[in-house]
């Protein structure tokens, strides 16, 4: 019977307790946002009666999932909100700016060949003013750098040939960020996996997971990408398809089904964040980690909202906790405010920074050597808003591991 229940996303179960409002970072920062209870289950009851009750303030939802994590009744509040944006929003045309911000794939492909120029030009004050004026991309934003050589290209040239020699195999969904903006994370991932005795394979044509498209309202485009990704993931080589991006992971595991209504059941369980996979290998004594004797660092760990939702930050903490020279300080659970492309939009800049303020202040007061965090957009936000660098825990592992000794131990 459950299958034919029209109560999508469990909104019937809502007991109206309001805990969701309590944890919503947007509601606290922006009075124009009615909060997850009203935007989600309460609003949905009225939208079912008359689509006139659709509220354009739903666009403020960061889709951070904090309400869903907090809900004692299992209501998928953010999914109700995202689905409503598709179902009831009558102004379906997507702004050029939103389309560009959301098309991480396309933009990367276009910009990468001219990356050095693009990075310089995007850094100029004049460019920022023009983007601000014409495109409404806030001039105070620091743009993520584009990388000249994409990860995929590096991988094919420098790494692909040797991968078959490892006794275990995995696939890697690198995502747009690793490919276009920060290939180093992908390189660190390959380094770590190889040291553990795992060869890495790329998927046969991955596409952007679509998370930014959903927030821009480009649901159909997101569905096309999802269809492609479900196919290439089901054809993947190796034990699992590993990821280094929390948001891509959440999107492909949960939102393909809940928001886009796609059947991802055949691939869901094979998509795993690399950190969880590695922790489980260590825990099951299938691999050994040997750390450098002289590694010493003090890191503040910020759990991204989507990592809170996945419920997997425990694996990162346990894994980083194994590094003898690392002092790991767990930051309070707060949203950084950028929420993917949200903070790039001019009209959202102030709200975005206001939401992140408690996090920035805590980082400053902790004064670590760097911040540890799995999410790429949190990284941009924290690096722009504090003076601290942000490192993905995979990169921290790559730095802290005695790679040769580890490779030896896992041979």
């Amino acid at each position, binding site marked *: *019977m*459950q299958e*034919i*229940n*029209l*109560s999508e996303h469990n*909104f*019937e*179960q*809502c*007991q*109206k*307790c*309001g805990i969701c409002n309590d944890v919503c970072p947007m509601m606290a920062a922006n009075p124009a946002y*009615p909060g997850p*209870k*009203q935007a989600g*289950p*309460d*609003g*949905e*009851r*009225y939208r*079912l*009666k*008359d689509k*006139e*009750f659709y*509220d354009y303030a739903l666009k403020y939802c960061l889709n951070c999932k904090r309400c869903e994590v907090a809900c004692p*009744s299992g209501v998928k509040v953010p999914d109700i909100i995202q689905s409503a944006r598709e179902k009831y929003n009558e102004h379906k045309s997507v702004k050029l700016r939103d389309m560009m911000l959301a098309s991480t794939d396309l933009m990367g492909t276009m910009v990468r060949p001219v990356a050095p120029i693009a990075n310089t030009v995007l850094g100029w004050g004049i460019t920022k003013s023009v983007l601000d004026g014409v495109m409404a991309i806030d001039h105070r934003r620091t743009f993520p750098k584009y990388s000249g050589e994409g990860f995929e290209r590096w991988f094919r040239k420098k790494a692909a040939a040797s991968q078959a020699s490892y006794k275990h195999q995995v696939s890697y969904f690198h995502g747009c960020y690793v490919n276009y903006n920060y290939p180093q994370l992908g390189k660190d991932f390959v380094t770590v996996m190889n040291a553990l005795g795992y060869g890495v394979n790329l998927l046969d044509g991955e596409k952007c997971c679509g998370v930014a498209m959903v927030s821009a309202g480009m649901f159909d485009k997101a569905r096309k990408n999802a269809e492609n990704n479900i196919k290439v993931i089901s054809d993947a080589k190796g034990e699992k398809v590993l990821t280094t991006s929390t948001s891509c992971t959440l999107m492909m595991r949960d939102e393909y089904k809940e928001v886009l209504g796609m059947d991802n059941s055949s691939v869901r369980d094979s998509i795993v964040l690399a950190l969880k996979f590695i922790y489980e290998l260590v825990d099951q004594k299938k691999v050994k980690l040997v750390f450098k004797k002289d590694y010493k660092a003090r890191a503040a760990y910020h759990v991204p909202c989507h990592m809170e939702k996945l419920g997997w930050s425990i694996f990162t903490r346990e894994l980083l906790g194994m590094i003898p020279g690392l002092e790991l300080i767990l930051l309070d659970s707060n949203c950084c405010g950028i929420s993917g492309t949200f903070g790039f939009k001019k009209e959202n800049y102030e709200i975005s920074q206001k939401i992140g303020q408690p996090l920035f202040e805590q980082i400053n007061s902790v004064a670590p050597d760097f911040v540890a965090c799995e999410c790429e957009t949190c990284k941009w936000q924290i690096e722009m808003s504090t003076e601290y660098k942000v490192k993905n825990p995979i990169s921290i592992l790559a730095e802290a591991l005695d790679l040769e000794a580890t490779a030896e131990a896992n041979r």
Partner: protein
Amino acid sequence: MNNHQDFDVIVIGGGITGAGTARDCSMRGLKVLLIERHDIANGATGRNHGLLHSGARYAVKDAESAEECIKENQILRKIASHCVDDTQGLFITLPEDADTGYGLDYQKTFVEACLKSGISAKVIDPKDAIRMEPSVNPTLIGAVQVPDGSVDPFRLCSSNVVDAQLHGAKVLTYTEVTGFLKNGDTIEGVKVRNAITGEEAEYRAPVTVNAAGIWGHNIAQMAGVNIGMYPAKGALLVFAHRVNNVVINRCRKSADGDILVPGDSVTVIGTTSTKVPFEECDHMHVTPEEVDLLLREGCALCPSLATTRILRAYAGVRPLVAADDDPTGRSISRGIVCLDHETRDGVKGFISITGGKLMTYRLMAEIATDAVCKKLNSSAQCQTATTPLPGSETSGVKEVSKKLWGSATQGQKAAAGRLGSRAAEVEFSSPEDKQLVCECENVTLAEIKYAVKHLNVNTMEDLRRRTRVGMGTCQGTFCIHKAAKALAIAKGEPESADKLAADFLDERWKGMKAVGWGDTLREMEFMQKVYKAGKPDTYKD
């Protein structure tokens, strides 16, 4: 004791029939007193499906009722547009119906009867029916589309009362008729007692209309006449959200639980039909057997009801007039009964209007008012079929909101839906007034203040019937203390807030208890925790 001799007609009963009669009489220039012992729309008026019948349900068996229904259906769409939702309706045939003689042959008979009564009934492909209403039982083998809809009985009744008041009528709620002022065989007025203060009074008028629904039986006895009434209880269940957007009926002889109506933010399944003793009419409760039956039959219409949260159960009593000894009351005509007790029983100045149904209230009011006018030698003509009710001049959430506020808040949109063009009179002047008190039903402080001031509100139950406050998923758990405070302040009795809230929660609790499992049970426990913890003395189950 006060004496008053200022009225042309006294109408007893603030249900839809009385309210409609008070409106019609006052629009014809009569000086009207409307007396209700409780609140308006408290009896059967507020305890039914809220179905805007097309008449199709009666077409085969009772062509007269069917014709009345379709005519009134078309009238209400015009004069009560802010109370009506044009959902359309489906009459479905399920595979198992063939075994009981209601297969597709019956569908043919049904459609013919509908067309004969002037009801547009269109046979549609089952696939199209599923497209039209995705929640319908997908195994259906036949479907007929008819112009059913839903009508909000609270709004409809309140609008009639408001219009009567605008035409000079006096309305006394919480005022019980304790006896008649008789002069020989003439009724010259009524004795009443205020149910809250206990104060007694007498009112005089040359004509008194008994429009008290099932309680009209006792009113008539008080006047020394007998109407053989037949109290037929009907139980219904309310689901927590709109599961369907089209009314779903079963295409067969009227039976229990065969109509599913989307009304405002919820869906209602009903009804049952059982004879109850008169003593029970004031204390209706829904039995586990009735709940089981309604759920079982409801799931045949719409399988997803099996997993949808049920908010509450309630029951009303149909004021049928007995004609034979059918134990269920199903075969009694739902036709209108207007009795002039002068010609029938030799009691002058007294008329009873009963039978009928919500759908035909306006026609009943017209018939009763015609009888009143005849007694008063007035030739004024009925205008209720063409004059919109207050609020129905413009209607529709979009149209009203746009006209009044440009870009509206959720609370304003909801007020526009409930009050139609009368929403213009709600004062959203301060940010506080725009705040939602009831978040489930989007009721603002401004709308509560408006209702208390203009819509005859005394208790929290009255406020609920006017605004939907506390009718949503939480059944008042998270809003009722705020709403009660607002009502108490508006009444000038701020210290009464706790009592108002406690009485309301007791009433909610009764309706929830009948369906107290799953999420409803969780909500009940939550409610209990919240209020027992805070106010151990005022809330007891």
